């Protein structure tokens, strides 16, 4: 092979590579031109048949051609691979607005959420949870709490009694748990909260015959009403925000004296007056007071030495306020349209 024919070889090879339009054709061209049976290897192999003075230059030329073709082929392969990937990625594109593979999610009841929030705040202030029976003795539900038989306060709490079970009733408040807790702890200082289910013969938009309360009790030597006020204010600020307007006003409960109620500035109208606060700008959140000496004595504490304060609030009411629920009965229907709305919206 003459030196001029290497140029011819190069021309033919470049022509063939140019004509290769896809990766397969490029790889075929590589086999054809650079393969073991290709013309360049062939020519290199036949160098030994050439006159010695030509051998060196021809070898150099052929090797240079081989390197050049190798570079061109690699470059072509690379760009075609890149082109292929680019095309694939286009083909594989999805509509990202199609729905995700759904998972069924569950979640807590708004009442439990409210209860958990109340418990969290009160535990932080130093109270521990106690629980008691829902079927309670008439004595602990009433007499022990300074509500004797003919007391007008019994009217305030219309009671479910039990058939064939004299002396038992469905507790009308969680307060009997306080007496139980006192009896279990006297004469040690006590800080407890009693969340639980209670019952009253009442059924309308704001009253349900079954509902939930949480009550708190602190007993010890030297407990005064200033402690009550600080505890309630701390509780309300944790719950409704540090800047919420607060108001304590005298009230009446048979088991506390003096008694007070705590109002918070209406979160819906910021005190301007609205439907929720009946135009007053205030919302009543809890009842409280200094534990009545009669109740302390029932709990096993000597009222000459010990004093205490107690407070209680309805969990339904708290949930209704916090989540803007207007009918208490919605809380007990198990309606998934209602229950699923407290955790972001359903897909």
């Amino acid at each position, binding site marked *: 092979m003459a030196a001029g024919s290497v140029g011819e070889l190069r021309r033919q090879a470049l022509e063939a590579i140019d004509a290769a339009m896809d990766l397969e054709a490029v790889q075929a061209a590589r086999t054809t031109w650079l393969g073991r049976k290709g013309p360049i290897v062939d020519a290199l192999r036949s160098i030994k048949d050439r006159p010695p003075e030509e051998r060196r230059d021809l070898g150099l030329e052929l090797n240079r051609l081989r390197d050049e073709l190798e570079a061109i082929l690699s470059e072509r392969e690379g760009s075609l691979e890149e082109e292929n990937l680019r095309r694939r990625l286009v083909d594989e594109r999805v509509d990202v607005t*199609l*729905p995700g593979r*759904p998972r*069924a999610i*569950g*979640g*807590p*009841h708004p009442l*439990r959420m409210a209860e*958990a929030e109340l418990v969290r705040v009160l535990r932080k*202030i130093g109270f*521990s*949870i*106690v*629980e008691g*029976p*829902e*079927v309670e003795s008439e004595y602990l539900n009433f007499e022990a709490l300074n509500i004797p038989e003919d007391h*007008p*306060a019994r009217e*305030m709490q219309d009671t*479910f009694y039990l*058939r064939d*079970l004299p002396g*038992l009733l*469905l507790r009308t408040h969680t307060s009997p748990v306080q007496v139980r807790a006192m009896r279990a*702890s006297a004469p*040690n*200082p*006590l*800080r407890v909260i009693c*969340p639980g289910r209670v019952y009253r013969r009442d*059924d309308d938009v704001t009253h349900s015959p*079954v509902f939930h309360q949480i009550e708190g009790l*602190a007993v*010890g030597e030297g*407990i*005064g009403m*200033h*402690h009550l*006020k600080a505890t309630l204010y701390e509780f309300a600020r944790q719950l409704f925000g540090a800047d919420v307007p607060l108001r*304590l*006003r*005298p*009230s*009446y409960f*048979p088991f506390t004296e*003096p008694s007070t109620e705590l109002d918070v500035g209406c979160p819906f109208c910021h005190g301007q007056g609205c439907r929720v606060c009946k*135009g*007053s700008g205030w919302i009543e959140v809890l009842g409280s007071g*200094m534990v009545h*000496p009669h109740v302390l004595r029932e709990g096993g504490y000597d009222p000459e030495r010990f*004093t205490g304060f107690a407070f209680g609030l309805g969990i339904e009411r708290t949930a209704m306020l916090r989540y803007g629920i207007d009918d208490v009965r919605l809380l*007990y*229907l*198990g*309606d*998934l*349209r209602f*229950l699923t709305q407290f955790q972001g919206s359903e897909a």
Partner: protein
Amino acid sequence: MQVLYSWLREILGELPLAEEVANILTGLGLEVEGLHRQGEGLRGAIVAKAADVSPLTARLWRVELDTGSGRAVCVTGASNVGRGAVVPYAQPGTRLPDGRTLEPAEFHGQVSEGMLLSADEIGIGADHDGILILPQDAPLGQDLATYLGLPDAVFDVSLTPSFAQHCQNMLGVARELAAALGMILPAGPGRLRSGDGDASLAVRTDPALCPLYLGARLVREDERPTPLYIQRRLWAAGMRPVLPIVDLTNYVMLEIGQPLHPFADDRLVGAIQVRSARPGEQIETLDGLTRVLESGDIVICDEAGPVALAGMMGSQRAEVTEETAEVFLEAALFKPASIGAAMRRLGLRSEAAQRFAHGLPGSLPWRALQRMSELLPEVGWRMLPGIAVAGEEPAAPPAINVDPHYVRRLLGIDLSQEEQCDALRRLGFEAGGDRELAVTPPYWRIDVMEPWDVAEEVLRSVGVDRLPEELPPPAPRIAEPPSYALRLEALAALEALGYRDALSYSLCDPKELESLGRPAEVETANPLSVDMQALRTTLLQGLLKAVRHNLAYGRQEIALCEAGRVFARDGDAVVETEMLAAVLAGTRLPFGRYEAERVDFFSLKGDIEAALRLLRVGALDFAPSQDPALHPGRQADVFSGGRHLGRLGELHPSVQRHLGLDLPVMVGEFRLAEINLAQVAARAKSTPRFPALIRDLAVVVDQAVTYGRLRQVLRAALGELLVAETLFDVFTGSPVPDGKKSLALRLTLQSPERTLTDADAEAAIARALQALGEHCGAQLR
């Protein structure tokens, strides 16, 4: 209780604006729940006189009016306007409180220039039957709102029992207000100064039921209507003016709190006696009902029998009518507990009963008679001298001794003894003493008896705003019951698996419990309705009700859970057990692009297994159970470490149909206490050091052989070499012979001591097959 602003102002002389008064009352504990203004928006109406009245049709009258400065003609449908009557006249252009603006109108050819107004239209009363008749001396042409003092605020005050005793009257409310405003407390009427008892009025009483009974005789001298201001005040209190003498007794009750009862004197026979009713004794009360009495109810009797249910309501027999010219007026004290009990039993919450039930100051009957004697001339009546007296005025309680340190400690306010005395004096108490306070309540405060009552009064007087804020000293925490945390954790586990917490009532229809094979054991004696009669014995009742509710609006993906108590009876006691329940029905996912799996027994079983694992319960065993409410072939008891945790299954098709559910429902219910006991401590095991071998094995067994049994035999045969077995196929039908099934398992074999060889695995499989053949009749497939 409705409180008229203008009435308070009349008693006290001067007052801040109504909103301010409302705030003060609320701050005192007399919570103002509502504030509305009578006659607000009334503009343009005037006082006029009916100069002439003539019929226009059978039901309409033409009234010619003298407006003071001119004449006008009005048509009215009210029949109570006589010639000469002074009436409220709304001329054309007048705006009424309801927002209407009057225009001239034509009736049967007669143009009516505006209209005459009823009390209701003015906004001061509920009476819309007739036109409001004004006093003869009302100045013609004067603006009606000005004349009536409108708008006038009405406070809707919520009375707690602590105020019901001394503030269920205007004078009481006015006293509280006066104390808060630093004004002199209004004294109220003194005792009637009466001569000796009138022998002609013989009265006997039972001092236990009625410690004091006063009787006065009233005579009519002139016929006069009830003064307009009294009518207005009765209306505002929700009472209806009837007859002047009756209105006056009601008015005195509203004003000072002593209910009074007028009897038509000519209807009484002989002497009056106050006594306990005889069981079964009957009385026809003023409302026309015949009431059956019980021993302990108090009746007022004459010689012909009961004439009044004491403190509650009179009888028809001695009712005062328009003809009555002589009245026997009762002012008495009745035992509060008796009145309260009768009130509750008979459902008779009369204004009088609500006051007697809270107790009255001992001298109040005498004061009420004094007030009556002052007011009687306004309606043309007079009180005869000589009062019949039975019983005795209860003695005033002794002074209360209070340690001023006690008050300071209880309230946490640093108040000197003198400050405490001042605070009490502002409320009308007498207070003094050197080391201890000696406190004497005013006559109207019979509820203040103990040192803590006194402390409360001191607080109310200085105001709760005086309380400092100081957090209580910390106390040791006590151990909390595990139930609370476990309940929330159990719910959270199910919630994580897609279940929604749904609280339901613990009161339900006993029939629903019956149909679930869990009959009620405890029922309420006084249910609101039959569907809230029984205490639940299962949480499933409420959850299935919720399933039905959700299906009814078309939801097909239902997964609900609940934690709560169920109630059983044990002799004379009730046992409360805390349960955790779950129900699952329809599909996991809503209809859509991705496959919506229909749930079945194994869906719920898988969820329960996962939930119990999340709760750290040890290995579970499932055994077929026999619950008639569940599908006989698809239910199981769940055990762990020999403890029965609960049961799950598919609802029996007939129960499902009976409950109105149109698709299969999976249910499960578990005892939280047992779950608690079955929890195992978390402990780390060493991570295996040698590789595991995987071998698949398929065997053919009789249909009756359970997987559970197979697994048990397999585990026994391979011991600790078998670290896991996974069932991956259950197959029946050709080529598996009839009555047989093929089970395919993947076994994971591993040794803690060395790398297993193929020969080890083959030996293990051979051992397994031999045991399975021997105990389960299994053959290699």
